[in-house]
């Protein structure tokens, strides 16, 4: 018979190492273990300890294994707090695109915590940071998101930043966005892609 029944009982106790979940000092020590699997287990365990946020955030910047980094973001999402947002926002300026994207996705998961930072991010002197802030807004379940996007369309001088906001408004915008969008089309009348994006967004918003 080629099919064999498991030799392992499904009810067998879990490995002893998992039992350390409540031992904060052991978990913190695990962050520096040479084996990435041990570091992932430590990071996952620390996801239940709000007091470990500083160590988890610090680890993000030095962790060499992508798998551990991914789990770090998951634990920080679980622990979401103003302190976590404070640590993640600077990552929007990182050279490492993977780190930037993971930070963006993590911030989308903490709408209430990130809300107080949105307006300053949308005024950042770096247009790439403003675009990433709009990406955060694109999937942020927060009722102020349309208002923030309209603000961008009205005030931002950079065409790519405005275009990112237009795309977002096509999905979440209401009637109040229509006039600012049409004004944007006039402001960038020499940019055909803006005209196209605005027309599409207005059609979506008006349900045509």
């Amino acid at each position, binding site marked *: 018979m080629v*099919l*064999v029944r498991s030799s392992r009982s*499904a009810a067998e106790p879990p*490995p002893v190492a998992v039992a350390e979940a409540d031992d904060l000092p052991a978990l913190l020590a695990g962050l520096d273990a040479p084996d990435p699997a041990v570091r992932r287990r430590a990071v*996952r365990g620390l996801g239940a300890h709000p007091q470990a946020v500083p160590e988890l955030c610090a680890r993000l910047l030095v962790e060499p294994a992508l798998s551990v980094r991914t789990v770090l973001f998951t634990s920080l999402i679980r622990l979401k707090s103003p302190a976590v947002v404070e640590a993640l926002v600077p990552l929007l300026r990182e050279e490492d695109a993977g780190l930037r994207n993971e930070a963006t996705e993590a911030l989308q998961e903490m709408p209430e915590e990130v809300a107080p930072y949105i307006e300053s991010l949308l005024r950042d002197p770096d247009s790439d940071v403003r675009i990433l802030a709009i990406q955060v807004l694109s*999937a942020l*379940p927060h009722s102020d998101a349309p208002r923030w996007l309209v603000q961008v369309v009205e005030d931002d001088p950079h065409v790519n930043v405005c275009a990112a906001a237009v795309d977002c408004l096509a999905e979440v915008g*209401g009637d109040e966005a229509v006039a600012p969008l049409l004004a944007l089309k006039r402001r960038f009348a020499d940019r055909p892609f803006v005209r196209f994006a605005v027309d599409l967004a207005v059609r979506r918003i008006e*349900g*045509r």
Partner: protein
Amino acid sequence: MIQDACRAVDASPPVSPEEYAKLCEFFYRRTGMMFSEKKRYFVERRLQERIVKTGSSGFRDYFALLRFQASGEELQQLVNLMTVNETYFFREDYQFDALTGSMLPELAKARARGSRIRIWSVPCSTGEEPYSIALHVLETWDLCDDYEIEILASDIDSRVLADAADGTYGERSLQRVPMALRQQYFARLAGDRYRLRSEIRDSVDFSTINVVDPLQMARFRGIDVIFCRNLLIYFDDLARRETVEALYECLAPGGFICLGHSESMNRMSSLFRPRKFGDTIVHQKPAEAE
């Protein structure tokens, strides 16, 4: 009562094509599930039901609730309605073709004859999936005599596991099982019921599991192929991330995970490498996993 509910749904404002497109786009971004034009009646009916039940004044009002409700409860309700909870033998069998045509040969190449290959079906519901895997391996993988194939099957619901272990099915479950296979692997019972022969039933190891419980998940290690289909769509984003990361730990390096056709790994995790086998994409834990 049912008639009243139908009338209420019929009385709700119709959904325009643009609104339908908007909902589908939003639903896809949040769940990875895509609805074609063919599914429009199915989707609209359920959408209108939720518009009425939530007391929303129309699509726009309801869409705002879906979009901005911090708890995400309404989105979950809609997801549940949009998901058909039925299973049957050889469902989405192109993944079983990928299993015996590509994944098992690749795994076998890297290990000695006689060694064990572990396949895990989770959630397994009433057993159709793990038994389909067993039958498909026996029927289509030429090398199956050279390796020990171990099939594990788990579900959170102990009632369905009892049915799974019993291995008795009706026509609805067996609709895609050819007569030759029925005759070979099933015993016919009264009332058009069929029971799997004991050598197949006994070859699958059933157990309960809650995939979001790390202690329970720690029991499963060194798995070569995981079938985790149509489960994660029920979870919120964080639970999805955590579950996928837990499944990563369950897999042996180079192991594969198969998700449902409407589930998208790249919306949940970057831990895996996508592999295209025939008509399906599966997700592989890198062999040199760190």
